[in-house]
């Protein structure tokens, strides 16, 4: 074990001891070290360069069925004592919940190859700066109508995690990740501007293709030149991978058992029921090293696995952490879905990587199948335009008309509206070309053809 990992482990162990000596019956500590760098370039120059290492610990304490949480960044003894004590104090304020209990050890975690990419350490800063500059240069040279690039960004992260609990849970892993994106600007009609996003993600910089990222941003921006409003109607839509991922993320979020058990999910009381067309198969996969949310264990130390969520058109399971599994009863076990965004907040039920199973049709065939409709390449306002309790959504969109089975004029400033379950039921086909997308969490998805959706434009 590397020295940094040992230090984290020791800090997690001490934090647990501190909470217990402050009065907690049980305690669990999650310690994180994140070493990262970020490069932003603009106009062929480096705009900013950031390098830093951050460490912190979060402690969950139980007193009977009462739970408290505290965090801090001082991993020396006084800091850990303070965090442990504050977590125990928090538990004393909370009310009793009969289902709250510390997670128990659940066997050996799986071995996942490929969570660490050596290129992250091997590529020194000048080389990743060059990568970001290549992205920008490629976009600028891709088309005469490209007016500029708002920014091109490269960022990476090398994370160490240590988990320790008084109930005997132990977890430790390291994972690296790298991503890059740019926002390209094209000259639109009448002096206006169009924007286009290009992005890539991988375990390290060697896995990123800067030319492809620059090209994608440029193409997306240029493809929107001359966009008008589409006519209001109900019509077939093809969701590109970025939009399909956003919707998959919304669905994954509402499949969390915490919302379901509190009656705040459109999927509540629908276990085993038909909730989607057969063409839509959705899994949660915490093991695929291509997915940046993969890890041997979840945020409470439960070994990760693959879970069928929607298959054969039916809802197979909700996502569970230890608490929701106990509350569901009937032998329900955690699906290893306790997510940790950071050490600053306690784990909560969330998908790891969501995977939408690909079908047989390439994009051209999907568009042909749609016939007349809209190819949606961007959505906006997801955080405010979706009701997570009812699943009803109305979001801003842009894309291209589909005319005679082919891409036609660009369209913008319209909304698409419906409800999540209704949309899943009208999925007619999944495309054959899947891609990892960082929207809606971490999602691997092909484009999707949805039979009919309500479009509001002119």
């Amino acid at each position, binding site marked *: 074990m590397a020295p940094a990992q040992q230090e984290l482990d020791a800090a997690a162990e001490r934090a647990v001891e501190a909470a217990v000596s402050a009065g907690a019956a049980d305690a669990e500590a999650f310690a994180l070290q994140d070493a990262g760098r970020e490069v932003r370039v603009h106009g062929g*120059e*480096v*705009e*900013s*360069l*950031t390098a*830093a290492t*951050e*460490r912190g610990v979060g402690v969950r304490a139980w007193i009977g069925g009462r739970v*408290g949480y*505290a*965090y*801090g*960044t*001082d991993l020396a003894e006084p800091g850990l004592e303070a*965090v442990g004590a*504050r*977590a125990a104090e*928090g538990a004393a*304020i*909370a009310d*009793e*919940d009969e289902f709250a209990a510390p997670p128990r050890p659940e066997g050996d975690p799986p071995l996942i190859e490929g969570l660490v990419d050596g290129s992250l350490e091997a590529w020194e*800063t000048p080389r990743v700066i060059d990568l970001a500059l290549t992205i920008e240069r490629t976009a600028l040279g891709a088309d005469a109508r490209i007016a500029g690039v*708002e920014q091109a960004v490269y960022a990476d992260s090398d994370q160490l995690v240590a988990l320790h609990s008084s109930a005997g849970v132990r977890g430790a892993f390291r994972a690296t990740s790298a991503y890059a994106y740019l926002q390209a*600007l094209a000259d*639109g009609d009448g002096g*206006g*501007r*169009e*924007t286009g996003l290009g992005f890539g993600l991988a375990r390290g910089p060697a896995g990123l293709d800067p030319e492809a990222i620059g090209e994608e941003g440029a193409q997306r921006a240029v493809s*929107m030149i001359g966009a008008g*409003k589409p006519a*209001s109607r109900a019509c077939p839509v093809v969701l590109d991978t970025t939009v399909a991922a956003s919707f998959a993320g919304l669905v994954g979020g509402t499949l969390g058992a915490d919302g379901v058990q*509190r*009656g705040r999910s459109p999927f509540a009381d629908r276990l085993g029921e038909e909730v989607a067309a057969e063409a839509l198969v959705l899994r949660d996969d915490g093991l695929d090293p291509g997915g940046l949310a993969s890890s041997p264990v979840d945020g409470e130390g439960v070994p990760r696995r693959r879970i069928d969520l929607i298959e054969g058109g039916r809802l197979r399971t909700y996502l569970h952490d230890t608490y929701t599994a106990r509350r569901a009863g009937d032998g329900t076990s955690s699906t290893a879905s306790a997510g940790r965004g950071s050490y*600053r*907040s*306690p784990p909560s039920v969330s998908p790891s990587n969501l995977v939408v199973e690909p079908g047989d049709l390439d994009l051209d065939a999907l568009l042909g199948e749609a016939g007349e409709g809209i190819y949606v390449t961007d959505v*906006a*306002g997801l*955080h*405010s*335009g979706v*009701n997570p*309790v*009812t699943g*009803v*959504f*109305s979001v*801003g969109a842009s894309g291209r008309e589909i005319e005679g089975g082919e891409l036609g004029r660009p369209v*913008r*400033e319209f*909304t698409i*509206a*419906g409800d999540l379950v209704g949309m899943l039921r009208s999925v007619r086909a999944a495309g054959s070309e899947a891609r990892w997308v960082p929207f809606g969490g971490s999602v691997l998805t092909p484009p999707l053809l949805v039979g009919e959706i*309500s479009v*509001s*434009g*002119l």
Partner: protein
Amino acid sequence: MSPPIEQLLDPAVAQGVLARALANGGDFAEIYAERRSGLSLSIDEQRIERVQAGGEEGAGVRVVADGTTYFAHVDGLVPADLERAAGEAAAALREAAAEPRPLQAVETNPVPIAVRPEEVPAERKAELLREMDERGRGQGAEISQLSASYSEGRRIVSVANSEGLLAGDDRTRVRIAAQAVARRGGAVETGFETRGAHRGFELLDDDPGLVAEQAAEKALTLLDAVAAPSGSMPVVVGGGFGGVLFHEMTGHGLEADHVQKGASVYEGKLGETVAEPLVTAYDDGLLPHEWGTDAIDDEGTPRQKTAVIEEGRLTAYLYDRLRARRDGAESTGNGRRESFRHLPIPRMTNTYIAPGEAQPEEMIAEVERGFYAVSFAGGQVDPATGDFVFGVSEGYLIEGGKVTSPCRDATLIGNCLDALAGIDAVGSDFDMKTGFCGKGGQRVPVGTGQGHVRIRALTVGGTGS
């Protein structure tokens, strides 16, 4: 008299760190130190849960040389670690050392706090949530769920830079929120309400239960809702959180980083008429006790009130130091950052359309068929194209000059310049609300406000006709 601010940076240490930061050259160096702490708890299913406390302190050091910013941050404020961060920030530079000016402490006036929330027992905060729960549920048997949250946060800030500035601030914010779910048969609706301020626990002296009642009322009202219409129509936007409309459709496009990169529809429009003469708008970082108010921004520049639109004419962009220098302008005190782990960028503070002369009832009475958007769940804009979208959390049809059916799940979309030019009435009422604004991965508290505002035409995207 406010008590003296706790100084996180010893002037001699800060002077040494700045010298280290400029040891390999550079035009500007800065150290931003911060101690943050907070507590939050919530009630759900009538149980107090998610009691979370925490704190952290650290500093960010940046060096600017030839337009490039080099940034490093550390946890903790140990002088040796600050020196190391300065060394890391300067590592890529190879020029002759530059000399920081001697530090001169600047007097600032932090917002006065009457009752420090961390001195109020946690049990009192739990009681307050129980009261909110009871009051919200008391609005009717159709309220099936109620959840409410309380949060307090404090940020003590010290900034020192190579131009000799040394300034500090002490910021305390308290906020409560309530969400209600109402059910009738198969219909399920939600309502949400908040109250927050740059204030101490005294914010909650005035009937916090009312916030839960208002959330419950909204959910109950929506049980009678019809599907929102779709199509282009006149829209009357409510006061208070309706101001998020101006925040999105104009405020973001005035942030100088977007403007300087050609990524704002307001680029090159300074001095031009962009709205009817009845529109005057401000970004005001000093509004007493508002959610986006501080004494200084996160670069140590005193906050100010900036008129961004005066009688329809675009009069100012919003600047931080870096972008101001690029334009030969002065910072408008809008350099903000989420924490010591982030670089400052131009951000709004409290943004609002100033009250006009119209009466809200008259504004509605003049509309034959339209939409009344009382409050929003949030919004988003692409400043480069100007396309924006808002989710409406409370909306009604306007038919024959009267507010009629509530509508569920409506979205408003439009383009900034058209919508701003389309404002044809501004109400004499006025209210400010709290919000969180995300940009470049950084979330900061902002105030949004206005009286009622009417726009000639916006696209309403609903599922109805």
